[in-house]
């Protein structure tokens, strides 16, 4: 909240500005620099230490999501665990970038006006795709089903590969 200059009454109105003076210049001790809009002495947030800390956190989180790919990841048989973990890691990373690198942490409330509707639209957009595209294979024409890849094809290819694996790689003329 801004502190009005003492000679003005504020019984029913907010702070009253003098001609030529900006509201910001009247804002007294009650207003922290974090409340300030971009412009004046508000760029003293951040700093090298903070940015490097965020950078370290981002690198650590990238290593974490890469960890799901390594053989030490304990849930290799349940990919859903890895997916959930990676999405959580990605959201954390995105939040770090947005809050600190894009300075959103220090911005005024307009940030919600722009980001929340866009985020809601984005989520809604993806959900709207589910019935027609996500569930497109629930019912397909026979003609299309004929040409679609199916898990059995993958199995067949794996069997062919292991048959090839079974034979020595260099010399024999045996086919399959």
């Amino acid at each position, binding site marked *: 909240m801004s502190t009005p200059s003492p000679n003005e009454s504020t019984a029913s*109105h907010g702070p009253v500005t003098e001609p030529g003076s900006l509201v910001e210049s009247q804002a007294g001790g009650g207003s922290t620099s974090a409340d300030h809009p971009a412009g004046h002495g508000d760029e003293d947030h951040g700093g090298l230490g903070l*940015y490097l800390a965020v950078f370290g956190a981002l690198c650590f989180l990238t290593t974490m999501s890469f960890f799901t790919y390594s053989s030490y990841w304990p849930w290799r048989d349940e990919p859903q665990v890895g997916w959930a973990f990676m999405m959580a890691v990605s959201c954390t990373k995105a939040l770090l970038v947005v809050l600190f690198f894009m300075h959103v942490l220090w911005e005024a409330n307009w940030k919600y006006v*722009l980001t929340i509707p866009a985020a809601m639209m984005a989520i809604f957009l993806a959900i709207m795709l589910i019935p027609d595209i996500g569930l497109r294979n629930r019912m397909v024409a026979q003609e299309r089903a004929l040409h679609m890849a199916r898990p059995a094809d993958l199995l067949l290819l794996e069997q062919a590969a292991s048959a090839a694996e079974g034979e020595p790689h260099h010399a024999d003329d045996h086919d399959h």
Partner: protein
Amino acid sequence: MSFLANASRSPATFAMNASAASIPHDAHGHHGPVLQYQPGLPLSRGKLIMWLFLSTEIMFFAALLGSYVVLRFGAAVWPKPHHVHLSEPIGAFNTFVLICSSVTVVLALEAARANKRSLAKIWMLATLVLGAFFLGIKAYEYSAKFSHGIYPAAPRGLIYERPDLYYGSAVRARLSDPAIIEQMKELDARPESELTAAELTGRRRLAQVREMAMAADQQAFDLAVIADQVMPLADDAAGGHGHGGGLNETFSWLQLPIVIPGGNMWASTYFLLTGFHAIHVIVGLIVFGILLLYELGPKHAGMIENAGLYWHFVDLVWIFLFPLLYLF
């Protein structure tokens, strides 16, 4: 209302502005308040426009990423990263490069605000170099896909969805191509001493594949064996039989059709997503190149900030693209 008003300009200020016309005097009978125009949002015009643009970009990439996720999880079969020759370490390294470039652009902004012009220029240049490095790695990855016949569309793409009769006839058609017949004759004529071990094995396997492909009575399994010989799907345990390449890798002129179940949809989404991201990276690099022409002092800090916002957004998109494309 209070949503739009900055904390230092209280909602009351806002309300006063709105109703000023109807209140000629304040409660104490003094002169009416002297009003002054206040902008609706407490930020510079350039930054506002950049944020508006970014909010459209959020939806743009949300549409792309959302369709990717929905297509991927709705598909009966989706190739594993190894099947399409994606390298997770390269992707992770690219993530690292982009994060570094995000830090350097932030540091360039800080330096410009502190009027350390040459330092700002160095950080900006570092951002440009890192961005170009990212693109270089991406180009290398693209060329690896292309060399395996993985293209987003038909004329060059060699991907077939299943080892079925259509695949078999495509292999036959390729093997009956006069140019390929010529190449195969040349290969057969070369003495064994001239060939490498891989080429020697490849020649033997190619002869088998020709025999199987031209045979009158093919079983589904035969076609799968052909597909495996042409380009094996690497299994999860990397370094197995898969990475040893197939006939297509041994003989780059061969370019036989390959089988990757779900591979066509994968290629379409992969190239679309990474392609649009790469376009954004290129635009960012152009902007940084232009910025480098200026004195990067406090006067141009706003420009650096806006370019930085855009660049962080590009980084943000990659943060989601990397796990979705490389690790899922």
